[in-house]
């Protein structure tokens, strides 16, 4: 056995939060090593320590059998460590090649750097099947392609260890499969891959070994072939976890939310939604399935008032909204619609605001912010403390800026805010993106509780499993059009797959 990377007793605190406590970890050369753990368990912190972005308070890092001192990411790269961050760090207005060259431009006229980089890039994309056009602008690439550029960047210095922090969170299932093919080739070439993910199925499918973290500690290492998703989930959370959703049949009542011939054409004149019709009743969940980029985002944002519908009409809890009404999110919210946006960093949170300020974002005009003219910080603080306790946000510190929470806990802040407003209609986008299994269980339970309390819920998710297990009925979008709405009892992967490819319901059924 040949150890590529070893951590000994690594610890790291942020103020009072002990993010990593005496972590020991050995990563074999030429293997895919999964790291799992709850939100805030300290996974990203540990990876950032390896990559030199954080400095451990104590402990040692051994690389290739030798103790090394990683003081910066430049050091890490020199030692052969590469990292792909969850949030990409590419220059959108540069080409792929220019992005890969960053940091190793070589000379005033860039000639040496460009030639060498191109050669290296072509070599890498050939060996590892990382297909991407070196001369394309990064802003023209889709998420999966951008990720490949990040991987090439990470590998260009001859990395022996590649760290991927939740790489599949933003990918479609197809893109994720392509990524895993690439990782396998890398492994066979002797590279060690450290993979963080919340999806146990991915851990089971692709890793060789897996390490489990809980509340800053390493609680176990397993050979993937000798463990099960159930065991991993329990190790992570410290209790038994329900991996399947327990959904009772819906008792749909009156129609609360409907769209008639809804259309949206963007400023460039591209038709993004066309002739969408649906109804959501009180007490039911309508799932929206589709390959990413087929209008789900536009649909959510149009329904939430963030874009103006250009044709057709909506009926929201009895109020008619047409293209002539210049809606905005305020109007829609005031009608009683809650909205969990798909992208929490862009829409759901102000990262530089404290958690308690984020907890009233969108509700700043209500008594959550105080009943008088001025903000009442006692109320605001109390509101945040209550919701953090109820939704188990960690750390439960209302004064911490949103950006200092782990990804999953950021999501819980958004969920806590929108769920507890008790909306009549709820628009939910990617509710469990980047959220740990324990929290997924919790969020799913809460969603169903809201449903049973009479809320009309529209759910968009890239996870087909999530759609199938939560929805009562499923609407499939393809190319901005409604392919059909089917009962979730009749929905299986194959039927949905065909519909997502554009086959009408009648033909598919």
């Amino acid at each position, binding site marked *: 056995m040949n150890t590529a990377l070893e951590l000994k007793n690594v610890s790291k605190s942020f103020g009072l939060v002990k993010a990593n406590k005496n972590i020991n970890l050995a990563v074999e050369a030429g293997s895919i090593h999964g790291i799992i753990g709850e939100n805030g368990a300290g996974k990203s912190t540990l990876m950032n320590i390896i990559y030199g972005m954080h400095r451990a308070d104590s402990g040692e890092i051994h690389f290739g059998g030798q103790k090394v001192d990683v003081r910066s990411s430049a050091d890490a790269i020199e030692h052969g460590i590469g990292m792909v961050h969850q949030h990409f760090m590419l220059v959108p207005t540069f080409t792929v090649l220019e992005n890969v060259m960053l940091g190793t431009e070589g000379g005033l006229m860039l000639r040496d750097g460009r030639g060498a980089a191109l050669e290296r890039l072509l070599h890498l994309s050939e060996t590892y099947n990382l297909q991407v056009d070196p001369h394309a602008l990064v802003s023209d690439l889709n998420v999966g392609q951008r990720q490949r550029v990040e991987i090439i960047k990470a590998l260009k210095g001859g990395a022996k260890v590649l760290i991927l922090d939740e790489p599949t969170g933003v990918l479609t299932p197809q893109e994720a499969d392509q990524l895993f093919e690439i990782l396998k080739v890398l492994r066979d070439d002797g590279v060690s891959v450290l993979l963080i993910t919340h999806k146990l199925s991915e851990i089971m499918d692709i890793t060789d070994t897996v390490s489990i973290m809980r509340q800053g500690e390493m609680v176990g290492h397993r050979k993937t072939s000798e463990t099960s998703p159930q065991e991993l989930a329990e190790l992570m959370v410290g209790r038994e976890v329900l991996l399947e959703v327990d959904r009772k049949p819906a008792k749909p009542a009156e129609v609360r939310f409907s769209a008639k011939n809804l259309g949206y054409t963007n400023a460039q004149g591209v038709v993004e939604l066309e002739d969408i019709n649906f109804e959501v009743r009180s007490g039911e969940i309508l799932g929206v399935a589709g390959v990413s980029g087929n209008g789900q985002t536009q649909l959510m944002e149009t329904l939430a008032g963030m874009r103006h519908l250009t044709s057709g009409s909506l009926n929201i809890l009895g109020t008619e909204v047409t293209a002539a009404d210049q809606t*905005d999110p305020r109007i829609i919210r005031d009608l009683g619609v809650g909205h969990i946006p798909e992208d929490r960093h862009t829409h*759901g949170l*102000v990262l530089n605001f404290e958690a308690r300020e984020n907890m009233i974002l*969108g509700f700043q*005009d209500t008594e959550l912010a105080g009943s008088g003219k001025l*903000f009442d910080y006692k109320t605001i603080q109390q509101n945040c403390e209550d919701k953090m306790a109820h939704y188990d946000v960690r750390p439960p510190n209302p004064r911490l800026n949103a950006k200092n929470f782990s990804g999953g806990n950021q999501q819980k802040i958004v969920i806590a805010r929108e769920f507890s407003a008790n909306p009549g209609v709820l628009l939910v986008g990617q509710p469990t993106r980047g959220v740990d299994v324990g929290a997924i269980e919790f969020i799913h339970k809460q969603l169903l509780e809201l449903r049973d309390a009479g809320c009309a819920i529209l759910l968009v998710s890239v996870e087909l499993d999530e759609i199938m297990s939560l929805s009562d009925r499923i609407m499939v979008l393809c190319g901005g059009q409604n392919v059909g709405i089917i009962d979730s009892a009749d929905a299986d992967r194959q039927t949905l797959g065909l519909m997502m490819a554009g086959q009408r319901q009648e033909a598919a059924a």
Partner: protein
Amino acid sequence: MSTPTPPLPRWADLILLPIINLFAAFFICGLIVLAIGENPIEALGVMIKGAFVYSGGLGYTLFYTTNYVFTGLAVALAFHCKMFNIGGEGQALIGGLGAALASFSLGVYLPAPLAIPLAVLGAFIAGGIWGVIPGYLQAKRGSHIVITTIMFNFLAASLMVYLLAGPMLEAGQQSPQTAKLAESTLLPKMADMLRPLGFDITSSPLNASFLIALGAMAVFYVLVWHTRLGFNIRSVGQNQEAAHYAGINVARTIIITMAISGGFAGLLATNEILGFNHKVVLNFTAGYGFTGIAVALMGRNHPIGIFLAALLFGALTQGGGELDFEFQSITREMVLLIQGMIILFSGALAYMFNPPLARMIAKFVAPKDPANG
């Protein structure tokens, strides 16, 4: 980002770092004074005495401070909404026009308790109008606020030259200025206000506008951190898309922010016009609008910080004049040099001393907070 820097404790970030930056700036200036053959310690002594000790010195210092507070607040409020308001200069000029119009039209008929608030309001509203137009153009038309506010500085300057040399020129006057404002709209001198209370201070230009500045600081604080509008302003400034999602009207927030920002700048006229010149003169803003950017930057967009930064710049303005008197080879321009150095060190290079300082503090603090076991 590539070097792991431990986060700086709050107290060090807010107090120690600015002091170190200041020392660095003064140190470089000291070297320059040395190079031109004077004693830097002596020069510093003269400046401090001129600004705080000599009779009336403190009054002058606080008079200048008042100006910097107004323009600093104007820039800072816009910063909170991520707007770069470079138009403080023009907004202040138009504020002077507003104060004068209020004074000439209504002030003459009213007693001071009514006339003064009216004139102050005139300055605020006129400055606000000069801020709201670029704000509107930014919010609705996408014209960049930096460009438009600079243009509006020129517009304001030309307009004032035209008015002061033409329609508003005092009859029989040779230099471009208005007649004296209505007596009832003039702000009392601080020395005159304090005398009945038993404090006898040397008369200086310091006037009641200083109190308006303190009031403006309080209003700023409450507005930004304790009102719904302030929450909206900060949301738009931090993340426009999240603000939109949260139902905040982004365009309207930008427009309102620029109106209030311009209003703060306009209040500078209460100090210079209502409190000191007692008539509108040409170029009474003298660059305060621009220095306000540095004041806001140094003051971290917080009223307390802005006051301290304004006090520093006020003291430099006053003490610098003293330097000019006392030393043959040092001129007023030395003050500009010092100002420049301060802006350089606490603005552009603000975080130069951050990493080494943070590492040093981390070393001292670490043993108290033992790495967990």
